């Protein structure tokens, strides 16, 4: 199997080429100018993850929504599920920046935390 990627570990953006057999066996990365490029490609192919940010409706008089984020990268395949849950939730204020809204989402070890403090 073959795949082209762009490394985003630094602004240079090396064009990477990945080749492998079966379930990412004999994974070979080329095109990277530094070891971080190979690490990036391996992670991205085997277990792609992203920080997820969103807003959740809340009962504040100041603003109808409160921003949230995951406190670590979430496996990509869980992102849609998380977002659909968040948009249908409702936050009761007060909340503080860093408070946990959803703990260990789907056993991913990622918590959803508030990224803003709203007290009224």
């Amino acid at each position: 199997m073959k795949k082209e990627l762009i490394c985003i570990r630094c602004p240079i953006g090396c064009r990477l080429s990945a080749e492998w057999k079966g379930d990412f066996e004999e994974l070979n990365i080329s095109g990277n100018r530094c070891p971080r490029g190979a690490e990036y490609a391996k992670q991205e192919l085997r277990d792609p993850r992203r920080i997820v940010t969103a807003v959740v409706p809340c009962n504040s008089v100041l603003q109808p929504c409160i921003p949230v984020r995951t406190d670590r990268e979430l496996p990509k395949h869980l992102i849609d599920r998380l977002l659909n849950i968040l948009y249908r939730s409702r936050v009761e204020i007060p909340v503080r920046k860093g408070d946990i809204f959803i703990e260990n989402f789907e056993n991913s070890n990622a918590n959803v935390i508030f990224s803003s403090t709203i007290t009224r």
Partner: protein
Amino acid sequence: MIQEETFDVTVIGAGAAGLAAAAVTAAAGKTTIVIDREDRPGGILRQCIHNGFGLRYFKEELTGPEYAEQAAEKAEKAGANLRLGATVLDMKKEPDGTLLLLVLSPGDGVRKIRSLAVILAMGCRERNRGNLAIPGSRPAGVFTAGAAQKLLNMEGILPGKKAVIVGSGDIGLIMARRLRWSGIKVEAVVEIMPYPAGLTRNIVQCLNDFGIPLYLEHSVVNILGRERVEGVEVAPLKDGIPQTERKFHIDCDTVLFSVGLIPENELSSSVGVALNPSTGGPLVDSGYETGVPGIFAAGNVLHVHDLVDFVSEEAEHAAQMVIRRLNGETAPGGTFPVKVESNLKYVVPNRCRNGQDTRFAFRSLIVTNDAELEAEQNGKIIWKRHYNYIRPAEMIIVDLKAEQLKEEGELTFRLKKGEKI
């Protein structure tokens, strides 16, 4: 009688620049007021709910609201007064050299605010469809990327169901992901230049992740629909001219424009601050002081940055210069001009002083992976550095030490393209 208040320093704008500057002046014991239109501090950061901010300035990766909240805490802890929901309607220089602002707010009504120094930190606004005179009809569903971002992230309102994004600036890219993460389709991003205007990581994470096509060297030549947007016509460009015979239709109900930012300097101009046509921001010396003594500028009002961390740093530098001026340690104005030529769009500052640490910020006009940036003064190359990555989207920052700037004389920077591509 209109109430008058007096401060050492007035900061206009409580975004990243204003809050960072106020934290520094207030911590140095200068009475400081920060004036902002919105009810909460943080400026545009508050609607930038995505992560990627703060690694440099706060040493941790933050979302926009987190960065805003930390910056506001820092300013308030240092003793800065925040005057929110307040608009500066007018600014003038008094015969005694103080600066007098007319400020309106629902909380305090009409106030005059007098200070010894003003730091301009109003940020920028988005260039819009009207500025570009994009042809077609004028239906609902045409937004700047930032306006759509505000509707979605602050109000929870979906601006449309199927969008085309014009311009590949970072806000547009970030919005592409946000739209997809809100259940909205993104049919295309259309960019007139042969390369993206935004950062590579945003191309990868906001477009490629979702399979959103990026049309480079293409232009929207028509917006369709009478009541609500019904589609756009896109044409490839040849030598910058749309090839309308090769135009194609994209069905959509929403068009977002992410086509550049303009420093917001109408207030600055009204008090006589001269602007640099290359940046849209004030001409400043290496102390970030504008041509009007006592008025300083930092952040996106001075020139448009790509990283908020640099905005905060620049504002801190400016604030330190304000403190030195208020303490009588420096005089206004630089002693020699700073110029750019070949492949550089601009430099900040425009004048500087010998024997003083100075930060220079540049924007390239070219894409290259092999270039040398050099500084020439009095016929000698006084400094140079090799770069293996230069993009117009990414600002170049150079810090020169006092000992590197020993002499007087016009300082010219140029970017020389190397052999490699």
